[in-house]
């Protein structure tokens, strides 16, 4: 078929977190440019299953860029070469016929490999469990404008809430720092009156858990902001820093 591509994949294979892994080369033929990157992996996995080999384990769920499950470090970038997309939203037309594509799992001490390209991101869940919520039930959704919230605050909170917890920020950061993720979660609540009440304890607890999990320290390289599929801004990290300093002065 015209326009179809033949590619060489180099994929990280690792049986479990107890064993060492390595890059294994797989040729794939006849790939449609309209496939998503994950669909291309489905094709490869069917070939592997037909040959009686173990398919490649990779995370995915919604396949429409909202769940944050799909990961994959593609040719040195999380979610591949395009900005503002997850791997499930990456199309094969972003590559050329004959390309070699290297696919690795997220790499961070806090994200141990489960198998092949899947990593354990429950460190994020434990950070959320330390304060990514409000303790009281605020009841049903209020009528619009019942609680006056300045438009810029509402917008900033909404933008921070767009974080899907994918971990691309950690994966790309040279320090494996989780500060973009944690700051987005802190910001979305700190900016709104319902979240403001517990803001002091929240920022202290979530930062403490983030450190506990073994994520690195941010050095403001800005890589996370560029690679984040949801465009979470560095402003959130600055807000977290402010919140944290003020919280430590107050208590």
């Amino acid at each position, binding site marked *: 078929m015209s326009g179809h591509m033949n590619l060489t994949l*180099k994929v*990280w294979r690792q049986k479990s977190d107890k064993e060492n892994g390595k*890059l294994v080369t797989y040729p794939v033929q006849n790939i449609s440019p309209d496939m998503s990157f994950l669909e291309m992996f489905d094709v490869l996995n069917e070939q592997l299953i037909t040959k009686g080999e173990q398919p490649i384990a990779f995370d995915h769920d919604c396949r429409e860029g909202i769940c944050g499950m799909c990961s994959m*470090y593609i*040719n*040195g*970038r999380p979610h591949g*070469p395009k900005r503002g997309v997850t791997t499930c939203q990456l199309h094969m037309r972003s590559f050329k016929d004959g390309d070699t594509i*290297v696919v*690795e799992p997220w*790499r*961070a*001490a*806090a994200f141990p490999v489960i198998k092949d390209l899947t990593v354990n991101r429950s460190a994020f869940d434990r950070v959320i469990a*330390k*304060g990514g919520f409000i*303790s009281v039930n605020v009841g049903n959704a209020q009528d619009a404008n019942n609680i006056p919230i300045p438009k810029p605050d509402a917008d900033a909170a909404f933008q921070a809430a767009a974080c899907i917890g994918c971990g691309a920020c950690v994966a*790309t950061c*040279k*320090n*494996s*720092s989780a*500060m973009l993720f944690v700051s987005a979660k802190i910001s979305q609540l700190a900016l709104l009156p319902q979240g403001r009440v*517990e803001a*002091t*304890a*929240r920022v*202290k*607890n979530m*930062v*403490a858990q*983030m*450190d506990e999990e*073994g*994520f*690195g*320290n*941010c*050095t*403001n*390289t*800005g*890589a996370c902001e*560029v*690679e984040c599929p949801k465009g979470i801004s*560095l*402003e959130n*990290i*600055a*807000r*977290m*820093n*402010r919140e*944290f*300093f003020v919280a*430590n002065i107050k*208590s």
Partner: protein
Amino acid sequence: MSNTSGKFIQSSLGKKLLMGLTGLFLISFLIVHCLLNSFIFLNDGGVMFNEGAQFMANNPIIRIMEIVLFFGLIAHAVQALVLTLQNNKARPIKYAVNNGNANSKWYSRSMGILGSLLLLFLVVHLSHFWIDTKAAQFNGTIAEHNTYLEMIEVFHNPINVAVYLLGVIALAYHLLHGFPSAFQTMGWNHPKYNGLIKKTGILFSIVVPMIFAAMPVAIFLGWIK
């Protein structure tokens, strides 16, 4: 929600705050240092420069600030080492392919190396000037101590000039990232001021190292006697 966090200064953000504060303090020192040394451009045979040096050597406030500066620099370098070691540990297995240039600047990713170069340079720099001045202070010969002549001598050696130029290049790149980075660390990120911070940072990181670089070059070429 009960508070379950530990000590401020042991937290990642506490350490970063110290890094940013000491970095900004070092920048403020740099401004004073650059202005005073610029007296050599008057080309008056070092009269004004030596007066400045004498003032700095005798002023009690400057003497205290020198100690603060010393500990500030040590704190900055020690904290840099702690952070860098922790950050390396946070990724025990590296990527086979990593395209850092797609999302960040090389100098932003090389602050540890640039800082180490600065530290090496500072050892050489202090051995050139500071140690002699200190010795003169302790021996009570500071009034006769001619820092200007010492400088002319040091910068007639081309190897020294090359070392200073390398040191200044490392400083420029360290500041190019460090200047705006310190503001972000302090939490000073606001759309209204971000452009100003960025532009000031670039200007500062180019102009100040250029003035410093002009000193050994002008002396070596004999423009300043």
